[in-house]
């Protein structure tokens, strides 16, 4: 859906609160996915998704369409909710590796070797230790399938800045993985 069309839906929801359900239906999967990839477990992902939509609902009247998709606004709320979650609970320091790997549940293939599993495990761990904006970029690009232009809109940056951040993120990831292999 084009941002202009979506803005009409938002306007309708601002006038009729029940129409918010349509916006919810359009965006709940991607917001949940974003939060899940950041937290690594279902329970917190559900809690933070709920908080994101409750906050969006409560502040919908503040939203002003400026040519940026409504999803960018929702992602920003979700991103802040995750940041608060990390800050308040300091889970980034105590989060267990099992929790980090929960996302493999039901996805493990029997033919997958121990080595491949270990590599995946190491990669998830390294990704979760990246700076929040780098994690956000990788999730939007590879999990949500957004283009660089869409990521730029969502993150409030220029497309050039996103390309540069992406390049630096991949270099940092590879460097960290190589350092782990060397240990």
């Amino acid at each position, binding site marked *: 859906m084009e941002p202009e069309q979506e803005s009409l839906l938002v306007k309708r929801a601002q006038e009729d609160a*029940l129409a918010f359900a349509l916006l919810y239906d359009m965006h709940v999967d991607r917001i949940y996915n974003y939060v899940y990839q950041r937290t690594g477990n279902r329970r917190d992902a559900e809690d933070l*998704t709920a908080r994101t939509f*409750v906050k969006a609902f409560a502040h919908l009247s503040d939203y002003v369409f400026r040519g940026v998709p409504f999803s960018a606004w929702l992602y920003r709320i979700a991103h802040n909710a995750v940041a608060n979650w990390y800050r308040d609970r300091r889970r980034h320091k105590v989060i267990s590796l099992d929790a980090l790997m929960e*996302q493999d549940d039901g996805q493990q293939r029997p033919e997958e070797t121990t080595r491949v599993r270990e590599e995946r495990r190491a*990669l998830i761990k390294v990704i979760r230790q990246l700076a929040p904006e780098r994690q956000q970029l990788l999730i939007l690009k590879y999990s949500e399938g957004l283009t660089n232009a869409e990521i730029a809109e969502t993150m409030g940056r220029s497309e050039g800045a996103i390309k540069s951040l992406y390049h630096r993120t991949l270099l940092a990831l*590879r460097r960290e993985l190589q350092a782990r292999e060397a240990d």
Partner: protein
Amino acid sequence: MASAAEQMSEWEDLVGQIREVLAPRKPASSFRHRLRWELLQMAQGHPDRDVSLAESSAPRELIIGAAIGSVVALAGGIVYLLRTREHSRARSMADVCIEQVTTQVG
């Protein structure tokens, strides 16, 4: 020194792995429906839904347990109060009887 082709292949491998570990995840349909219902309740002006969502991180079992505990404690208090009253009434009745008996004997 790795050739350009080898380097390209390494990057492609890394990107492939990232795609794999960040494979999209969908919410459980029960969660999806519940949250939608709660948002609709809020939209219809039931402010209590707001509180329920804000507190959704607290374990539900804990809340139910605390509620049951409070009810049991309250019931216990009432039973204790009634028994104490009954007991003191019985005692005062006994005192009166004893007094009467003592008077009659005297």
